[in-house]
């Protein structure tokens, strides 16, 4: 627990993961960095920012997501040069696999959208899939899409680079300091109480990821996002044989190979009925993921799992994040609900969040991204169908 240096700040960001840190980064370019505070109850990289598989893709159904992702790819390509920390962003592509005709239609539709954004996505017949991943078992594959500029990033250096840069600019970041309460007069945020003391502030950003629901409860605003436990594993490091991230549409199984050579992958398990709390790895996941890896790359059967771990996704009902000011509580901004895709969208999404916090206009369609979209129940909403993996 640490106490903040000041008793009042212009903006307090709750959550010291990539979303919070990137938001602080963009804010600090337009305001006094000394008046920004980032608080986090854990340690840097302790949440999803240090637990994700590092996938960065531009293959999405919704146009705005494609644009945000594309901007992120450019940002991450330059991250090492600009921040001095090397995230080893390797653009080996993303390969989406369809196993049914229905999935082929989904991929074809996505392909059209991505291509219309000017990205050189390719639709592959099963035989051409082998040109991309020779060791894949394509016998039941019906079709695939492939975009070579998608890639995989090492998450930790992004967090370290951001922290180093924020420190240099004079932005205060406090870890191991929990937020206890958010005070408002019912319409407008006034202050927050932390373990390290009370801080008055007119603006709070909820960038707490898997804990965004708890922060919403503290603020007394409707809870739309909720955390789900996701598991992931890494094999022993193998000589490179796999260039892209491979994703199956049916189960959201994904796997790629890191710069160390480990095959890192996961799939979505339903833990909603589990009584366990906290982070854990389940036996069921190890079994299911082994079956999937063996089914997709049979030669992996003799390879070994080195370690498995877990983290929280912050899910939203439509697979799209919540970005912007809360419709009921003034000064309370959302930057959450990324559903497991916060890392890949962070640089571009948080740039807009910073604009909104500063009261500027953004190029985002509020109907798509604003937290207010959930206040009108009857209305048809855009849904991101490819929020998987």
């Amino acid at each position, binding site marked *: 627990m640490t106490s903040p240096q000041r008793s009042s700040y212009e903006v307090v960001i709750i959550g010291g993961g990539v979303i919070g840190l990137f938001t602080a980064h963009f804010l600090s370019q337009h305001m006094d960095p000394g008046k920004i505070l980032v608080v986090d109850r854990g340690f840097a990289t302790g949440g999803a920012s240090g637990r994700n598989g590092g996938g960065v893709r531009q293959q999405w159904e919704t146009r705005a997501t494609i644009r945000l992702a594309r901007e992120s790819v450019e940002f991450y390509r330059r991250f090492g040069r600009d921040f001095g920390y090397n995230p080893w962003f390797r653009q080996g592509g993303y390969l989406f696999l369809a196993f049914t005709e229905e999935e082929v239609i989904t991929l074809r539709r996505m392909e059209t959208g991505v291509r219309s954004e000017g990205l050189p996505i390719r639709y592959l017949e099963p035989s051409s899939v082998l040109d991309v991943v020779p060791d894949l078992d394509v016998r039941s594959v019906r079709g695939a899409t492939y975009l070579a500029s998608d890639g995989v990033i090492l998450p*930790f250096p992004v967090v370290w680079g951001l922290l180093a840069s924020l420190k240099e600019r004079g932005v205060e970041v406090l870890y191991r300091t929990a937020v206890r309460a958010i005070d408002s007069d019912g319409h407008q945020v006034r202050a927050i109480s932390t373990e390290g003391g009370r801080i008055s502030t007119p603006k709070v950003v909820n960038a707490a990821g898997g804990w965004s629901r708890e922060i919403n409860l503290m603020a007394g605003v409707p809870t739309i996002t909720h955390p789900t436990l996701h598991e992931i594993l890494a094999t022993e490091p193998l000589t490179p044989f796999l260039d892209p991230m491979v994703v199956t549409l049916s189960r959201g199984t994904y796997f790629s190979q890191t710069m160390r050579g480990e095959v890192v992958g996961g799939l979505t398990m339903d833990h909603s009925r589990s009584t366990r709390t906290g982070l854990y790895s389940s036996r069921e996941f190890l079994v299911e993921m082994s079956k999937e890896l063996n089914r997709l790359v049979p030669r992996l059967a003799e390879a*070994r799992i080195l370690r*498995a771990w877990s983290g929280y996704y912050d899910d939203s009902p439509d697979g799209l994040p919540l970005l912007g000011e809360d419709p009921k509580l003034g000064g309370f901004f959302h930057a959450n609900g990324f559903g497991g895709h916060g890392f890949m969208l962070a640089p571009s999404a948080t740039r807009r969040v910073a604009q909104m916090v500063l009261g500027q206009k953004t190029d985002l369609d509020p109907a798509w991204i604003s937290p207010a979209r959930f206040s009108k129940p009857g209305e048809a909403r855009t849904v991101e169908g490819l929020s998987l993996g």
Partner: protein
Amino acid sequence: MSGSGELRPLKNPAPPMKGGMIDIVFNGRPRRIIGGVSLAQALSQAGTRVFARSLKYRRPRGPFCGQGQCAGCHVRLNGVPMVRSCLVEPRPGDRVVTEAGWPSTRYDLFAVMDWIFSGGMDTMRGFNRPLALRPAYLSLVRKFSGLGHLPDAAPAALPPPTAVAVDVLIIGGGTAGTAAAQLIRRQRPSTRLMVADRSRGEDNVVFLSPGDDGQFRSIVSSPRRSALLVSASKIIVATGTYDAGLPFRGSDLPGVFTGDGLVRLHSDPSVPLFQRLAIFGGNAHTLSLLDAWKERICLLASPWELAPEVRRRAQTLGIPVREGVAIASAEGRNWIRAVALVHRTTGQTESFRLDGLVLSHRDLPQVGLLFQAGARMHWRNGAAAYFPEINERCETSVPGVFAIGGVAGFCTEADSRESGERAALAILEGDGTLGLPIRDPQSGPALLDRRVHREGPCPMLDYQTDFLRVLGSKKVILCPCEDVTLQELERVVSDGWETSLEVAKRLTGVGMGLCQGRYCMPDAVLLLAALSGRPPSDIGFFTQRPPVWPLRIGDLAGGK
């Protein structure tokens, strides 16, 4: 110091050589090696010194721990990469390949990396500029990644994992585990009991977790068949201890072994593999090592005063003894040939020529499964390690999970046995009153008090503090699996990062390698404490991730 209770014999020393020779194909050429021993032992005796190369600096790697948990002795065996050669017996016709290095593992031109980056390379902050060179850096570094090629072929058919339900699962068949098993079998023969002991090469419990239904879930692997998915109502963890590693310059050279590693790898002193062995430390294995290797031992050195009986034995055998010393460095190219000692108070240095160095200075509890089961752990200064909190029934903070023997901090045979019996009785009597027919209830707290070194001074922290004073600028490999240097750990502190083990792990990669921190984490805690001035108990820990030993994907993948 640690483990300085009574001296125990090793559970499973390497078998004496049966003399039969077998023919294998080694790196494409026929080679005749000894059968009936581990492949690591057989290859070593046939002259193989470098089994593998490290990831970053291409430093030579050879057998070290003898129990399948380091990154030293892995080879490609019959098309399967990274098989720990210390865990398998060779069979006639085996195809063995050492995969690292060009043109060969022994003479690797890329080992020049070690020389170019003699102060260490910074993969976190380097290779960033200019932007135009980024693709070249990426493909170059990627070329060096991985420790072995994808397996040659997929197995024809995979048998599905077998589900097994038992009442009690005992993990480890040493003194404590056996005592618990015997008592349960005698008192209640109807108990469905499973004793899994990895040292016999099978029944290795790699996963343990509480389930939703009050049963514990575990995965038990063995080299011969698909995994067992075991459900158990009660768990007794009796996984024992292992000998620690120690960072110094050259500590990762082939020819440096842990004490239990040497005994598992080379039991037969009549084989002329070592002419001049040095032993560092006086823990439980030292006496038996002295007796086994006698005149081939050129030095017994220790960070602190040796137990009188150990010192006497060395003197009787005419072995030079040095006490209160630290290892500053080891020299050698592909094999250790000299070691430099520095006296911890006088600072005097002394060099010894040798061809083998055995680390026997302290043993560590094998606690991975306890961390995973969610048991509350606490740091003990004396032993400089994390142990489970247990009550007088030897039950951990997780109801139904018991910890006995060495892993719970019991040193002597008698205490280990008693801890096993206490756990067994607690299980047999359910959750009712603790009536101990064997020992009076008052002895419970006394037993707990006899666990290793609870609080107080931390001799191993003092050792690392002394060592840091003689540390030069040349890199010291702290984590041999991932080539993380001690200097990188120093930078965590000097750059002002949070000095917790969790943060250090994600900044440097320490503990993320094949041993999952078994050989680097205990020293990383001490070094971070020494560098930051915080007590070791404040540095925290990271949990070993499941599986606690690497698990074949095919062991789980069979069936629908």
